[in-house]
């Protein structure tokens, strides 16, 4: 079952590349099936790993195709195909091959979250980059090649050094294979662990991203296809926080503790600084890029706190922000389709002649601010609670970032939707309703019943903290 869940989107993607006309329906079907299967995993998730499967890939070299879903894996096995499903509902005029690439990426992302072998994780992590580059390179804006080079070089410099650290993680400690459990049984220490952790941290900091390694992000979003589909995939691809949680910190706990203060500071700074920059943006995608960056800073704070509550909050935030940030990028795509530009100005007065559209935008914005009762709140709150236990001063910076979010989001909302009426555009209509209703339902459900995600995530976070030794 888990193999179908992972590889069905890729299969649909390959067919879509050959027959672009079927892309949208195929994609909707495949991601719907994957979502349902993921939901099955989520309902069955206990304290252990569900649906574990292990097939030797290169047996003599100790590489296995090993996948399975712990609580976190199960949550993302739902979130990833669900978000892609919603994105396919929302975009109407995306080229078929572009959807095919997005579906290939979906499989890569599912593989990242479900693999339990370090080399397999790396394979998925890198393989996902290829469709992502093609999405940007083929369908991007005028400056796409520059943005693509920046994105590719940042990602690759991190991940190639990580490959060296992956080898060290096994061979210095003499672990039998690259399976997570074998690696945990023979953890390495000393200077080697410090170097290896540094390499992992660099790779994941680029992918979180954390200041000052975020510079690829704004261009990446600004140059991607205006429909927002590629941005949604890019948002899902920000797997750094998860990488710290699943691999870097459990494999090298002592090294992590040595780096912890610096990492915490950088994460806090990212959260606050990005919120500040977001406030000054004049372009939908740049504003969203910085806003999402600020949220990632908060999530990183949660994981770096090394507490169960913080880690659980961080992963909840990662899952939830994929939904509402992705939703906002798609919303920006609608704005582009209606106004022909991504500037924040011309949408003024939208609330008057397209109230449903504006109301939906408001829900997404409020989720981003972290209004209690919507999906953004539980993750943010738990992350900050965790960091409060580790370092109240840094928690203060985190709180400031959250308050700043309210400022830039509500400021943007006021400028966007109220004010003097501008061009009259179409109201929410047709298939757009499907996306709007589904996204609203998911955001509200996660807001009022967060246990759906937070219970399985907490189980996994408990294991994470026990590896660290002590903590809350």
């Amino acid at each position, binding site marked *: 079952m888990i193999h179908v869940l992972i590889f069905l989107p890729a299969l649909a993607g390959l067919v879509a590349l050959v027959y672009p006309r079927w892309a949208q329906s195929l994609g909707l079907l495949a991601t719907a099936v994957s979502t349902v299967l993921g939901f099955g995993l989520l309902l069955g998730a206990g304290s252990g790993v569900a649906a574990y499967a292990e097939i030797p890939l290169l047996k003599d*070299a100790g590489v296995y195709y090993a996948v399975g879903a712990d609580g976190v894996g199960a949550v993302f096995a739902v979130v990833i195909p669900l978000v892609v499903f919603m994105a396919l509902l929302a975009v109407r005029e995306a080229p078929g091959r572009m959807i095919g690439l997005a579906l290939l990426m979906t499989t890569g992302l599912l593989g990242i979250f479900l693999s339990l072998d370090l080399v397999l994780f790396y394979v998925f992590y890198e393989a996902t980059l290829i469709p992502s580059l093609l999405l940007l390179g*083929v369908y991007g804006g005028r400056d*796409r*090649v520059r943005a693509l080079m920046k994105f*590719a*070089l940042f990602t690759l410099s991190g991940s*190639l050094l990580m490959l060296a650290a992956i080898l060290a993680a096994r061979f210095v400690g003499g672990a039998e294979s690259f399976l997570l459990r074998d690696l945990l049984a023979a953890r390495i220490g000393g200077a080697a662990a410090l170097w290896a952790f540094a390499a992992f941290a660099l790779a994941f900091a680029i992918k979180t991203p954390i200041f000052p390694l975020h510079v690829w992000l704004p261009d990446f979003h600004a140059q991607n296809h205006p429909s927002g589909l590629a941005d949604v995939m890019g948002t899902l691809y920000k797997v750094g926080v998860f990488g710290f949680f699943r691999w870097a910190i459990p494999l090298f706990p002592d090294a992590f503790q040595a780096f912890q203060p610096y990492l915490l500071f950088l994460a806090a700074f990212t959260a606050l600084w990005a919120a500040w920059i977001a406030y000054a943006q004049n372009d939908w995608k740049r504003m969203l890029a910085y806003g999402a960056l600020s949220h990632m800073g908060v999530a990183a704070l949660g994981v770096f706190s090394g507490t169960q509550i913080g880690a659980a909050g961080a992963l909840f935030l990662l899952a939830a922000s994929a939904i509402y940030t992705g939703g906002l990028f798609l919303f920006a795509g609608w704005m582009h389709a209606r106004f022909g530009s991504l500037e924040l100005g011309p949408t003024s007065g939208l609330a008057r002649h397209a109230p449903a559209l504006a109301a939906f935008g408001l829900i997404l914005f409020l989720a981003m601010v972290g209004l209690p009762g919507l999906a953004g709140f539980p993750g943010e709150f738990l992350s900050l609670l965790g960091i409060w236990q580790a370092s109240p001063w840094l928690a203060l910076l985190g709180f400031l970032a959250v308050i700043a979010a309210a400022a830039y989001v509500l400021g943007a909302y006021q400028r966007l939707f109220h004010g003097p009426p501008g061009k009259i555009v179409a109201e929410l209509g047709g298939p757009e309703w499907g996306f709007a209703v589904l996204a609203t339902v998911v955001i509200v459900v996660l807001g009022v019943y967060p246990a759906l995600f937070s219970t399985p995530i907490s189980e996994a976070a408990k294991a994470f903290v026990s590896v660290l030794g002590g903590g809350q």
Partner: protein
Amino acid sequence: MIPTAILFLTGLLATLLGVEAPVRWVRWVVRAGLALALGAALFFGAEGQAFGGLFLYDGFARVAGVVGIVAGLFASLVGARYLERTGMERFEYHALLAYSVFGVQVMAASANLVVILIGLEILSLPLYALAALRYDAKSEEAGLKYFLLGAVASAVMLYGIVLLYGATGSFAVSAVGQGPLYLAGLLLVLAGLFFKASLVPFHWWAPDVYQGAPTPVTLYMATGVKAAAFAALARVVVGAGVGGLAGAVVALVVVLTVFYGNLGALAQSEAKRLLAYSSVAHAGYIALAVFGPNPAPAMGFYLFVYALSTGLAFAVLSQLDEGEGVPFAGVKGLIKKSPMLAGVLAIALFSLAGMPPFAGFWGKYLVFVEAARGGQYTLVAFALLTAVVAAYYYMKLLALAFFASAGEGGKTPEVPALAAVTMGLVGFLVLALGVFPGLVYGFFNVGNLVP
């Protein structure tokens, strides 16, 4: 054993036949001979030895030999259009190719320095002629440069062999001696092999020769010849022991090679030359494998997937090349002119950059594992760091082919059906081995390099 004999007979037959029969026949005789040799090497095993162990066709020789045959066959199957355009379609071309592949088998199949040198000469002499076969200034320059420098390298190596014999009283690669005589001999032999493997600082000929030589010949040089050179190099280094001087020299050379090869490629604006530098850099990665406790499988696998990927890239260039090389402008907007060529090029470049799920990733992975097992983490980290640079110039080429609009005068390259099918198959293989590396790994999992 049998494949080597088949190749020798193929060369003879092609030469004799060529005098009378039309060149078309010779072409097919050589292709059939190469295919037959490949089949024999793959399915007969046919390991054994002759001449009192001087000729030693062991598992590793078989692996390197297969890479050589595949390279020759690949060059023959995709080169038709280029030969026709440049008026190179003569029977000598095909016969020389067969002789050179025969030389690869000999060089790979010995642990005796003299036989290695003989193999080196058998594979090189036809290549000097092949490089100059296009009969224009650039091609002649390439041939002459290759010949003069190659002759010097062979002489240096021979001198080293003599010194080693003086120090140890043996031609076996495993004979270890002491003192300045031995060390000097070892260094000279290594220098000769570094030259053939195009490792820095013995790589100077590579960019010029690769650029000037006919593109299908370059394809073969960059892949088949490397397999033979590395087979011999690995035997010599492992025979002398990586703990000693040989290991230290190789480590230094690896650092220089990955650094210089990748940075050199950055500055290029001609696709053949760029791939020449990239193949220099790859030589550095391949050499990393010798530090591990069991280098043969990693090295063999890397050589094989590298031959497929680089061969694929040069195969695409062979279709675009009108005899004057392939400047970047010629690659621009390839996706619109020929989606098939662009797609195949993308597979080749992603594989060369070492990105999963393409076969190149597992090649890199295996050699890095070997180096890590040998404790060479610094070397691994350094090699990986330069791989970022490599990714940049591969992306640059890819961005030109995919994302740039076509330049003016964009003719649609007509790809002959045979070449198209070959490239499609190899591209599929690169992808399939990337997803299921275990399929062929067993073939490369052979034992000792030194008897």
